């Protein structure tokens, strides 16, 4: 059995998780603490990937990621290579696809923080940025961890969006879920079974961890 697809899946999940936890935290801060016009529209837009069929999302991503699309053109101008059918391309697609899964647990954790703690921090001289790092983040660690784990397993299980944007290029975009599908199509059931056997316990363990973290967040440590 070729383990490259599994390695690619883990690599994709790792990159997506690291980038999303870092970028989703300030976005969540914006949603929870800052009042601005059109906030509910903005929030619905960020949540949209959660409810759209992956093929629909993948189709639109494909349109903007081709060298003629806005993001594809920008990427090519900066790096000199195309974005679709590359590993970088499926990372970008995963970021969009998993964004709501990063935001939701963080939002729950941020909303649980007493606003008076922030006011106290301001009176004690902290700027909003310093309060974000010294008060919000340390008190939302469970939410951040839950968010990271959810994004990780969600990305491991991604199929439709990756197929649309990345195709199935061995060593580049053929991740485990796609390799399993292709193995079944080619009647290589043993290969498919092996990969499934590895993915199921990984996902199960991560889910267990999320449940524990969420319980901690709700009932305290």
């Amino acid at each position, binding site marked *: 059995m070729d383990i490259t697809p599994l390695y690619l899946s883990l690599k994709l999940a790792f990159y997506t998780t690291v980038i999303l936890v870092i970028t989703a935290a300030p976005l969540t801060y914006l949603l929870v603490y800052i009042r601005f016009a059109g906030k509910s529209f903005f929030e619905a837009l960020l949540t949209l990937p959660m409810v759209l069929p992956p093929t629909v999302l993948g189709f639109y991503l494909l349109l903007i990621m081709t060298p003629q699309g806005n993001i594809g053109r920008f990427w090519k101008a900066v790096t000199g290579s195309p974005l679709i059918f590359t590993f970088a391309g499926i990372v970008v697609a995963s970021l969009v696809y998993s964004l709501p899964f990063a935001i939701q647990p963080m939002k729950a954790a941020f909303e649980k923080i007493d606003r008076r703690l922030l*006011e*106290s921090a*301001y*009176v004690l*001289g*902290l700027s909003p940025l310093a309060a974000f790092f*010294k*008060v919000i983040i340390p*008190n939302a660690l469970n939410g951040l961890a839950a968010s990271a784990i959810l994004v990780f397993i969600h990305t491991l299980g991604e199929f439709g969006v990756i197929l649309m944007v990345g195709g199935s290029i061995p060593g580049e975009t053929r991740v485990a879920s796609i390799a399993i599908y292709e193995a079944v199509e080619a009647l290589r059931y043993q290969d498919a079974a092996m990969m499934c056997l590895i993915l199921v316990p990984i996902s199960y363990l991560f889910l267990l961890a999320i449940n524990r973290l969420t319980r901690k967040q709700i009932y305290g440590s």
Partner: protein
Amino acid sequence: MDLNISIRKKLPHFDLDVSFSCRESRLLVLVGPSGAGKTTIIRILAGLDRPDEGRIIYNGETWVDTDKKIFLPPQKRQVGYVFQEYTLFPHLTVAKNVAFAADNKGDVPSLLKRFNIWHLKDRKPDKISGGERQRCAICQALARRPRVLLMDEPFSALDAVTRQNLREEVQKLRRELSIPVIHVTHDISEALYLGDDVLPMVRGRIVRKWMVQFMLKGRPSEARLPESMEGYDSDDRRDLSVLYDSLEVMQ
């Protein structure tokens, strides 16, 4: 070091409209029923809320002037604020909470010892009692070496014995401080016990300044203020009656 306040703000049920000043080494108490606008004043002083109109001037430095569109953010006012309920940072130990914004970290041990919580320095806030948490909150506010100390019903969530102990400690503390201290409470006995000046508040207005020294010498005529009842509607009269009744019980 004087703090001069003259502010107006529209609140849901009435307009807040107050003017008063507090001098250094004085403890001024705003006393009144819940919902009289006391906490709003403290929040405006701390910079957590904005008045619709008015000025706040500390020792010649303008913190708020709505005409000149001046608003000094809370970070720059250097006030100490002890909140009504516990606002210690739950992820930090007692010592780290106090050191959080300390002007000089060297002050922390002496403050903790001064308020008898040195032995709790390595505990998190959820592992200490309510009274100990408020002691820690007072230390946290003082560690910033505040220019004004604001206390918003700091004892209201405590049991009677702890409340009395803390009142005594604050009474001792205020003699050592050379800054204006503004204390908010709905408890008139606390107001009379702590205050140099007591400002009774009803529905966003200060009814009249009571000089505690006179009152404690037994001048009920100073306190009853029958003329103040004029010009108030039935709600105001009810709140005023509550204040007067508590005062009579005290005397």
